[in-house]
């Protein structure tokens, strides 16, 4: 088990069981802690945001708030599809050094809500490639399916915002 996963595990131990919202990306099922999810919206064409990383699709208006929308397929280097009516935006709230940000993630579709207890979560093996194992909190098997639980705070802060910053220069 790597450091991040251990820390996360300890942090949430007292909660015992947490609920996870899962979504699909190219047939794979990913889960995020439901407490992080603010809302789920239908896909709409965002306004282009110049000079940013490719996976930053643009910004949308969320009740007067300007919220960036990121494409997880692009971020994970998966095959791109044309975003159509079935695509959804999962709006998540992430915190980083005391600051809260609201960010939209484009996914193929939302799937289920599962109760997952800490002891069900298995550490992820070294994944290599584009998705750093640091972004993965662990793997869970439910009804024979594997679900990849994401550490959404870490993924967005370290894996996207910092990344996007450097690509701007």
């Amino acid at each position: 088990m790597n450091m991040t996963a251990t820390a996360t595990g300890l942090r949430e131990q007292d909660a015992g069981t947490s609920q996870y919202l899962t979504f699909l990306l190219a047939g794979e099922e990913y889960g995020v802690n439901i407490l992080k999810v603010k809302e789920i919206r239908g896909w709409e064409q965002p306004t282009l945001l110049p000079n940013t990383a490719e996976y930053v699709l643009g910004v949308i208006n969320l009740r007067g708030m300007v919220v960036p929308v990121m494409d997880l397929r692009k971020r994970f280097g998966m095959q791109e599809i044309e975003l159509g009516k079935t695509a959804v935006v999962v709006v998540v709230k992430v915190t980083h050094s005391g600051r809260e940000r609201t960010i939209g993630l484009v996914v193929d579709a939302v799937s289920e809500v599962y109760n997952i207890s800490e002891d069900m979560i298995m550490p992820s093996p070294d994944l290599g490639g584009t998705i750093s194992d640091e972004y993965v909190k662990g793997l869970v098997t439910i009804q024979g399916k594997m679900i990849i639980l994401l550490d959404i705070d870490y993924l967005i802060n370290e894996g996207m915002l910092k990344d996007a910053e450097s690509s701007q220069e």
Partner: protein
Amino acid sequence: MAVDLDMSQFHEIFFEESREGLEAMESGLLNLDVGVPDPEVVNNVFRAAHSIKGAAGTFGFNNISAFTHVLESILDDVRSRKRGVTQELVDVLLKSVDGLRYMLDCAKSGTKVDEDRIAAIQERLENLPVEEQPRPVGWQIRFVPKPHLLQTGNDPYRLFRELKTLGNLHITPDIGRIPAIDDQDFDPENCYLGWDLLLESDAGMEQIKEIFAWVEGDCDLDIKLSGERRQMVERRRRRDDDADTGQEITGKGQEQVSIRVNIEKIDTLINLVGELVISQSILSHAVTDHDQNQASRLKEIVELLERNTWELQEQAMRIRMQAIDITFQRLPRLVRDLCRSLDKQAELEISGGTTEVDKTVLEKITDPLVHLIRNAVDHGIEKPADRKVAGKSESGSIKISAAQEGGNIIIKIIDDGAGLDAGKILVKAREKGLIADGEDLSLEEIHNLIFLPGFTTAIQVSDVSGRGVGMDVVKRNINDLGGSIELESTQGKGSAFTIKLPLTLAIMDGQLVRIGKEILIIPVLAIVESLQIRKELLNAVAGKTEVYRFRDEYIPLIRLDKVYGITSDLKELTEGLLIVVDTGQQRVGLLADEILSQQQVVIKSLEANFQQISGLAGATVLGDGTVAMIIDVPGLMRHCKGITVASSAGNPAPLP
């Protein structure tokens, strides 16, 4: 863990309240007169210290609590007249306020307190010599009863007894009116005596008048303040007069009716109201499209809704506005400290403190104002002796005022000091190579040289000014806020700075332009002119940088589609429109496909949920609910320079 969180929430409130308490103490101390202090001022300072002590103890900041305790007991002595107010006392107390502020900052940021620094202040506090407070002098009362007073059943003795309950009473009878014993008109039942009374008391005029209420009309009564007390009260009255007129003056610290609200809640509210405005405008559009006859009633309702929503938005925006006094309050201390360290005398006069500006503007204007006031004392006001020679009063005058004019706030800083020395400025500017030798400048142009980077005339780098941070920074800060600064100065008479700032950073007038499918917004304030492109005026420099001849100058042309990575619809450059903007440094032309309407836009930061993006000032939500980017005009040139450097190896954009 949950408990910790709750405590930190209370800590926030404690820090906030203590900060306010310190400000109250500071302004109270600055108003404290040496000699006989105004009991109300002393009480205010004492109360503030007392609350900080109590709260610090509750939240376990024992060092703050212990330190405040020492401070409090000294203030208590002053309050109970065991200790007089000396200049030294005020100085040490002000130092203690600084010390407390430092400790609070440390507690807030979780850094360690430099114990020695605090111990040094505490030692000075503890070792302050006790100077006896001068005997309070009170009221001088001349009481001359009409002869029939005793017949009305009144007895002067009873009046004196009641006066005595207010304080020490010295009675001097006046027997001058007693007639000769053999006088025909002598009536033994008449009262021929008069009294001069001296009442040592801080009781108010009303209380004394009340005692004499029964004999009113049956006596000549003259109640006056005596000696020092009169001076003190007059001083207070003067201060109150200087304060904003039109307000009921009670002499007591005016309690502001306000509640503490988290700024996030307010911003959410403002966002929602903004959203309401958008829904409303969509509804308006829908109604216009409707069948005219059917819709007339509906239209009325929608119009009413429109008025109400706009009003609601305006009021919601006002929540963020704060009185500029918050910034102004710091200045008297600054002037006082500077005068002491520079051996100068100056009076700071503040007016218009109730003018309201957006919180963000307020936060960003503080440093420039402090800088300007510091300059006024350091460079402007002369030494008392020099002022006397120049035929001025020894004490200089600095006036700072704020007023609202339309959508702007105007801040003026006027001093009656030496003014700018044009000769010195010219020499300095030549020395620094800011102007060429033969260049002929008007007085105004010379004055404006001080706003150039790297300019400072202070011969020696002093502790006060001349740290290399100059007027250029002041000007830049103000420009960044979308404001401007102007200067007027007469040598020997003084200088006047006029700062013009937008009331709010949240709203601005925007010019919508279209490039391809995207809509961008250019701040109207920056626009000089919009024009159709004429091919013959277009030129290229080094084969790639395009310049356009605008009147008598060549201005660089920026293709917005290239800068922002948008596909333009333009087939011919001449189909496009050139919007000439002023970046503050120079003029540039921005090329767009089409110019759309102008409208007020609410500026939203991109940083809130993402990060700053070079070349953009933010985004806004348009009437149809979509997001549009706002161009950062001053930042655009910087951004373009970055791109040019990065892409200079690539192929130049071909000219059509």
